[in-house]
Protein backbone atom coordinates (compact mmCIF):
# COMPACT_ATOMS: atom_id res chain seq x y z
CA UNK A 1 0.00 0.00 0.00
CA UNK A 2 2.94 2.31 0.53
CA UNK A 3 3.72 2.54 -3.17
CA UNK A 4 0.59 4.54 -3.94
CA UNK A 5 1.44 7.63 -1.82
CA UNK A 6 4.96 7.68 -3.30
CA UNK A 7 3.60 7.38 -6.82
CA UNK A 8 1.13 10.15 -6.08
CA UNK A 9 3.77 12.46 -4.66
CA UNK A 10 6.08 11.82 -7.62
CA UNK A 11 3.25 12.67 -10.00
CA UNK A 12 2.45 15.85 -8.07
CA UNK A 13 6.08 17.02 -7.96
CA UNK A 14 6.55 16.14 -11.64
CA UNK A 15 3.44 18.14 -12.43
CA UNK A 16 4.74 21.13 -10.46
CA UNK A 17 8.09 20.97 -12.31
CA UNK A 18 6.37 20.72 -15.69
CA UNK A 19 4.01 23.55 -14.81
CA UNK A 20 6.81 25.79 -13.50
CA UNK A 21 8.84 25.21 -16.66
CA UNK A 22 5.90 26.50 -18.69
CA UNK A 23 4.59 29.33 -16.55
CA UNK A 24 6.11 30.26 -13.18
CA UNK A 25 3.47 32.79 -12.16
CA UNK A 26 0.59 30.44 -12.94
CA UNK A 27 2.30 27.66 -10.98
CA UNK A 28 2.74 29.93 -7.97
CA UNK A 29 -0.95 30.87 -8.11
CA UNK A 30 -1.92 27.20 -8.38
CA UNK A 31 0.20 26.18 -5.38
CA UNK A 32 -1.16 29.11 -3.38
CA UNK A 33 -4.66 27.82 -4.10
CA UNK A 34 -3.62 24.30 -3.01
CA UNK A 35 -2.22 25.63 0.27
CA UNK A 36 -5.34 27.71 0.90
CA UNK A 37 -7.75 24.82 0.35
CA UNK A 38 -5.50 22.58 2.46
CA UNK A 39 -5.66 25.01 5.37
CA UNK A 40 -9.41 25.29 4.91
CA UNK A 41 -9.72 21.52 5.02
CA UNK A 42 -7.44 21.02 8.03
CA UNK A 43 -9.71 21.89 11.01
CA UNK A 44 -12.51 19.59 9.82
CA UNK A 45 -10.06 16.83 8.98
CA UNK A 46 -8.38 16.98 12.39
CA UNK A 47 -11.74 16.87 14.20
CA UNK A 48 -13.21 14.10 12.04
CA UNK A 49 -10.14 11.91 12.45
CA UNK A 50 -10.21 12.43 16.22
CA UNK A 51 -13.89 11.42 16.27
CA UNK A 52 -13.18 8.29 14.22
CA UNK A 53 -10.17 7.46 16.42
CA UNK A 54 -12.20 7.78 19.61
CA UNK A 55 -15.07 5.69 18.24
CA UNK A 56 -12.70 2.96 17.11
CA UNK A 57 -11.00 2.99 20.52
CA UNK A 58 -14.31 2.87 22.40
CA UNK A 59 -15.66 0.10 20.14
CA UNK A 60 -12.67 -2.20 19.51
CA UNK A 61 -12.95 -4.86 16.74
CA UNK A 62 -13.13 -7.69 19.28
CA UNK A 63 -16.03 -5.98 21.05
CA UNK A 64 -17.77 -5.44 17.73
CA UNK A 65 -17.37 -9.11 16.95
CA UNK A 66 -19.05 -10.34 20.14
CA UNK A 67 -21.77 -7.71 19.70
CA UNK A 68 -22.56 -8.90 16.20
CA UNK A 69 -22.87 -12.56 16.85
CA UNK A 70 -26.54 -11.67 16.86
CA UNK A 71 -28.03 -13.22 13.75
CA UNK A 72 -31.00 -12.31 11.63
CA UNK A 73 -32.47 -8.87 11.21
CA UNK A 74 -30.98 -7.46 14.43
CA UNK A 75 -27.39 -8.26 13.45
CA UNK A 76 -28.06 -7.07 9.91
CA UNK A 77 -29.26 -3.60 10.95
CA UNK A 78 -26.71 -3.25 13.76
CA UNK A 79 -23.85 -3.89 11.34
CA UNK A 80 -25.27 -1.59 8.66
CA UNK A 81 -25.83 1.13 11.27
CA UNK A 82 -22.29 0.90 12.63
CA UNK A 83 -20.95 1.00 9.08
CA UNK A 84 -23.01 4.11 8.37
CA UNK A 85 -21.57 5.91 11.40
CA UNK A 86 -17.92 5.25 10.63
CA UNK A 87 -15.86 5.65 7.51
CA UNK A 88 -12.98 3.19 7.49
CA UNK A 89 -10.68 2.74 4.49
CA UNK A 90 -10.74 -0.67 2.76
CA UNK A 91 -7.42 -2.02 4.11
CA UNK A 92 -8.86 -1.79 7.64
CA UNK A 93 -12.44 -2.68 6.72
CA UNK A 94 -11.81 -6.04 5.03
CA UNK A 95 -9.77 -7.69 7.80
CA UNK A 96 -12.40 -6.46 10.27
CA UNK A 97 -15.19 -7.94 8.14
CA UNK A 98 -13.17 -11.14 7.82
CA UNK A 99 -12.82 -11.57 11.58
CA UNK A 100 -16.51 -10.73 12.08
CA UNK A 101 -17.34 -13.49 9.59
CA UNK A 102 -15.14 -15.99 11.44
CA UNK A 103 -16.92 -15.02 14.64
CA UNK A 104 -20.30 -15.76 13.16
CA UNK A 105 -21.65 -12.64 11.41
CA UNK A 106 -23.66 -13.47 8.28
CA UNK A 107 -22.39 -12.64 4.79
CA UNK A 108 -25.44 -10.52 3.77
CA UNK A 109 -24.97 -8.39 6.89
CA UNK A 110 -21.26 -8.04 6.11
CA UNK A 111 -22.02 -6.96 2.53
CA UNK A 112 -24.12 -4.05 3.73
CA UNK A 113 -21.58 -3.40 6.51
CA UNK A 114 -18.72 -3.00 4.01
CA UNK A 115 -20.84 -0.91 1.65
CA UNK A 116 -22.00 1.52 4.34
CA UNK A 117 -18.56 1.54 5.93
CA UNK A 118 -16.94 2.84 2.75
CA UNK A 119 -19.79 4.92 1.24
CA UNK A 120 -21.70 6.41 4.17
CA UNK A 121 -20.12 8.26 7.06
CA UNK A 122 -22.08 10.29 9.59
CA UNK A 123 -18.76 11.35 11.11
CA UNK A 124 -17.35 12.59 7.78
CA UNK A 125 -20.62 14.31 6.78
CA UNK A 126 -19.39 17.76 7.93
CA UNK A 127 -16.55 17.57 5.39
CA UNK A 128 -18.91 16.49 2.65
CA UNK A 129 -21.32 19.31 3.50
CA UNK A 130 -18.45 21.76 3.23
CA UNK A 131 -17.60 20.50 -0.26
CA UNK A 132 -21.07 19.98 -1.74
CA UNK A 133 -23.71 21.41 0.61
CA UNK A 134 -26.16 19.94 3.09
CA UNK A 135 -28.84 18.81 0.62
CA UNK A 136 -26.38 16.92 -1.57
CA UNK A 137 -24.74 15.23 1.43
CA UNK A 138 -28.00 14.12 3.05
CA UNK A 139 -29.34 12.80 -0.26
CA UNK A 140 -26.15 10.96 -1.21
CA UNK A 141 -25.73 9.39 2.19
CA UNK A 142 -29.36 8.28 2.50
CA UNK A 143 -29.41 6.85 -1.02
CA UNK A 144 -26.12 5.04 -0.37
CA UNK A 145 -27.54 3.60 2.86
CA UNK A 146 -30.59 2.31 0.98
CA UNK A 147 -28.29 0.87 -1.70
CA UNK A 148 -26.17 -0.86 0.95
CA UNK A 149 -29.20 -2.44 2.64
CA UNK A 150 -30.52 -3.52 -0.77
CA UNK A 151 -27.18 -5.07 -1.73
CA UNK A 152 -27.09 -6.95 1.56
CA UNK A 153 -30.67 -8.19 1.21
CA UNK A 154 -30.11 -9.30 -2.41
CA UNK A 155 -26.92 -11.08 -1.45
CA UNK A 156 -28.86 -12.91 1.25
CA UNK A 157 -31.09 -14.28 -1.48
CA UNK A 158 -28.28 -15.09 -3.91
CA UNK A 159 -25.52 -16.52 -1.72
Amino acid at each position, binding site marked *: *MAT*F*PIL*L*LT*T*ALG*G*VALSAANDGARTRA*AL*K*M*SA*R*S*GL*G*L*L*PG*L*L*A*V*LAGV*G*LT*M*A*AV*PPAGVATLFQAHGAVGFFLLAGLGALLT*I*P*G*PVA*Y*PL*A*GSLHRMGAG*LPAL*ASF*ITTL*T*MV*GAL*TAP*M*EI*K*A*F*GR*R*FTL*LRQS*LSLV*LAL*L*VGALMGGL*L
Partner: protein
Amino acid sequence: MRPDLKRPLLVVAIILAAHLALWIPSPGLAAQSLRNWGQGLVDVLVIVPSVLILIGLFDAWVPKEVVARNLGRTSGVRGVLLALLLGTGAAGPIYAAFPIGAALLGKGARPANLVIFLGAWATIKLPMLMMESAFLGIRFALLRLALTLPGIIACGFLMEALLSGHTAELRTSPGD
Protein backbone atom coordinates in the same frame (compact mmCIF):
# COMPACT_ATOMS: atom_id res chain seq x y z
CA MET B 1 -11.29 32.88 3.45
CA ARG B 2 -7.82 33.93 4.55
CA PRO B 3 -5.46 31.06 5.17
CA ASP B 4 -4.28 31.03 8.73
CA LEU B 5 -3.12 28.45 11.23
CA LYS B 6 -5.22 29.65 14.15
CA ARG B 7 -8.29 27.48 13.55
CA PRO B 8 -6.39 24.19 12.98
CA LEU B 9 -4.27 24.85 16.08
CA LEU B 10 -7.40 25.62 18.12
CA VAL B 11 -8.92 22.30 16.99
CA VAL B 12 -5.74 20.44 17.98
CA ALA B 13 -5.79 22.15 21.40
CA ILE B 14 -9.43 21.17 21.96
CA ILE B 15 -8.78 17.55 20.95
CA LEU B 16 -5.74 17.27 23.24
CA ALA B 17 -7.66 18.84 26.13
CA ALA B 18 -10.53 16.39 25.61
CA HIS B 19 -8.09 13.47 25.69
CA LEU B 20 -6.46 14.84 28.83
CA ALA B 21 -9.89 14.94 30.48
CA LEU B 22 -10.59 11.40 29.27
CA TRP B 23 -7.22 10.24 30.60
CA ILE B 24 -8.29 10.67 34.25
CA PRO B 25 -11.20 8.17 34.23
CA SER B 26 -9.83 5.94 31.46
CA PRO B 27 -6.16 6.22 30.48
CA GLY B 28 -6.25 3.14 28.24
CA LEU B 29 -9.11 4.47 26.13
CA ALA B 30 -7.52 7.91 25.82
CA ALA B 31 -4.19 6.40 24.74
CA GLN B 32 -5.83 4.14 22.15
CA SER B 33 -7.93 7.00 20.83
CA LEU B 34 -4.82 9.19 20.48
CA ARG B 35 -2.97 6.36 18.73
CA ASN B 36 -5.89 5.93 16.29
CA TRP B 37 -5.92 9.68 15.68
CA GLY B 38 -2.20 9.70 14.94
CA GLN B 39 -2.53 6.71 12.60
CA GLY B 40 -5.46 8.38 10.83
CA LEU B 41 -3.47 11.60 10.42
CA VAL B 42 -0.51 9.70 8.94
CA ASP B 43 -2.84 7.84 6.53
CA VAL B 44 -4.29 11.14 5.37
CA LEU B 45 -1.14 13.26 5.33
CA VAL B 46 0.72 10.91 2.99
CA ILE B 47 -2.03 11.36 0.40
CA VAL B 48 -3.86 14.66 0.80
CA PRO B 49 -1.01 17.17 0.15
CA SER B 50 -0.19 15.49 -3.19
CA VAL B 51 -3.88 15.45 -4.08
CA LEU B 52 -4.21 19.16 -3.24
CA ILE B 53 -1.18 20.03 -5.40
CA LEU B 54 -2.65 18.07 -8.31
CA ILE B 55 -6.03 19.80 -7.85
CA GLY B 56 -4.30 23.20 -7.89
CA LEU B 57 -2.49 22.34 -11.12
CA PHE B 58 -5.66 20.86 -12.60
CA ASP B 59 -7.53 24.05 -11.78
CA ALA B 60 -4.82 26.24 -13.32
CA TRP B 61 -4.23 24.31 -16.54
CA VAL B 62 -7.29 22.27 -17.54
CA PRO B 63 -9.83 24.43 -19.37
CA LYS B 64 -13.40 24.33 -18.09
CA GLU B 65 -14.56 23.35 -21.55
CA VAL B 66 -12.57 20.07 -21.49
CA VAL B 67 -14.16 18.88 -18.22
CA ALA B 68 -17.62 20.05 -19.29
CA ARG B 69 -17.29 18.14 -22.58
CA ASN B 70 -16.05 14.89 -20.99
CA LEU B 71 -18.06 14.81 -17.75
CA GLY B 72 -20.83 17.38 -18.37
CA ARG B 73 -24.49 17.19 -19.41
CA THR B 74 -23.79 15.89 -22.91
CA SER B 75 -21.02 13.42 -22.01
CA GLY B 76 -23.44 10.46 -21.96
CA VAL B 77 -22.18 6.90 -21.41
CA ARG B 78 -18.59 7.97 -21.98
CA GLY B 79 -18.88 10.45 -19.10
CA VAL B 80 -20.23 7.75 -16.77
CA LEU B 81 -17.39 5.39 -17.72
CA LEU B 82 -14.83 8.15 -17.20
CA ALA B 83 -16.30 8.97 -13.77
CA LEU B 84 -16.08 5.28 -12.80
CA LEU B 85 -12.51 5.07 -14.08
CA LEU B 86 -11.44 8.22 -12.19
CA GLY B 87 -12.99 6.85 -9.00
CA THR B 88 -11.53 3.34 -9.17
CA GLY B 89 -8.05 4.52 -10.16
CA ALA B 90 -7.34 6.24 -6.86
CA ALA B 91 -6.70 5.08 -3.31
CA GLY B 92 -7.61 6.59 0.03
CA PRO B 93 -10.80 7.09 2.02
CA ILE B 94 -13.79 8.85 0.48
CA TYR B 95 -13.08 12.20 2.17
CA ALA B 96 -9.92 12.53 0.07
CA ALA B 97 -12.25 12.55 -2.95
CA PHE B 98 -14.39 15.48 -1.74
CA PRO B 99 -12.03 18.30 -2.86
CA ILE B 100 -11.44 16.53 -6.19
CA GLY B 101 -15.18 16.20 -6.72
CA ALA B 102 -15.68 19.87 -5.86
CA ALA B 103 -13.04 20.84 -8.46
CA LEU B 104 -14.69 18.66 -11.14
CA LEU B 105 -18.10 20.12 -10.35
CA GLY B 106 -16.71 23.65 -10.52
CA LYS B 107 -15.34 22.89 -13.98
CA GLY B 108 -18.70 21.75 -15.30
CA ALA B 109 -19.07 18.04 -14.50
CA ARG B 110 -22.71 16.96 -14.18
CA PRO B 111 -23.95 16.00 -10.67
CA ALA B 112 -24.72 12.40 -11.74
CA ASN B 113 -21.10 11.85 -12.72
CA LEU B 114 -19.92 13.43 -9.47
CA VAL B 115 -22.02 10.97 -7.43
CA ILE B 116 -20.80 8.05 -9.58
CA PHE B 117 -17.20 9.21 -9.09
CA LEU B 118 -17.63 9.38 -5.29
CA GLY B 119 -19.38 5.99 -5.14
CA ALA B 120 -16.73 4.30 -7.27
CA TRP B 121 -13.99 5.90 -5.19
CA ALA B 122 -15.56 4.61 -1.99
CA THR B 123 -16.35 1.06 -2.83
CA ILE B 124 -15.01 -0.17 -6.19
CA LYS B 125 -11.25 -0.65 -6.26
CA LEU B 126 -9.35 -3.42 -7.98
CA PRO B 127 -6.68 -3.93 -5.27
CA MET B 128 -9.47 -3.82 -2.70
CA LEU B 129 -11.37 -6.47 -4.65
CA MET B 130 -8.42 -8.80 -4.18
CA MET B 131 -8.36 -8.07 -0.47
CA GLU B 132 -12.10 -8.58 -0.20
CA SER B 133 -11.78 -11.96 -1.99
CA ALA B 134 -8.98 -12.97 0.37
CA PHE B 135 -11.01 -12.23 3.49
CA LEU B 136 -14.56 -13.07 2.42
CA GLY B 137 -14.27 -15.19 -0.71
CA ILE B 138 -14.24 -14.32 -4.41
CA ARG B 139 -17.91 -15.19 -4.85
CA PHE B 140 -18.84 -12.64 -2.18
CA ALA B 141 -16.57 -9.96 -3.62
CA LEU B 142 -17.74 -10.34 -7.24
CA LEU B 143 -21.40 -10.53 -6.27
CA ARG B 144 -21.13 -7.40 -4.13
CA LEU B 145 -19.38 -5.62 -7.01
CA ALA B 146 -22.04 -6.74 -9.53
CA LEU B 147 -24.81 -5.41 -7.27
CA THR B 148 -23.08 -2.18 -6.19
CA LEU B 149 -21.94 -1.00 -9.62
CA PRO B 150 -25.39 -0.56 -11.21
CA GLY B 151 -26.64 0.77 -7.86
CA ILE B 152 -24.06 3.55 -7.86
CA ILE B 153 -24.92 4.57 -11.43
CA ALA B 154 -28.63 4.56 -10.59
CA CYS B 155 -27.92 6.66 -7.46
CA GLY B 156 -26.07 9.19 -9.62
CA PHE B 157 -28.94 9.81 -12.00
CA LEU B 158 -31.57 9.65 -9.27
CA MET B 159 -29.65 12.28 -7.29
CA GLU B 160 -29.25 14.49 -10.32
CA ALA B 161 -33.02 14.38 -10.86
CA LEU B 162 -33.70 15.08 -7.18
CA LEU B 163 -31.18 17.93 -7.07
CA SER B 164 -32.41 19.70 -10.21
CA GLY B 165 -33.39 23.22 -9.27
CA HIS B 166 -30.87 23.13 -6.44
CA THR B 167 -27.74 23.29 -8.54
CA ALA B 168 -27.10 26.83 -7.31
CA GLU B 169 -26.26 25.41 -3.89
CA LEU B 170 -23.88 22.93 -5.49
CA ARG B 171 -21.85 25.55 -7.32
CA THR B 172 -19.93 26.61 -4.27
CA SER B 173 -16.22 27.06 -4.65
CA PRO B 174 -14.06 24.27 -3.22
CA GLY B 175 -12.56 24.75 0.21
CA ASP B 176 -14.87 27.58 1.14
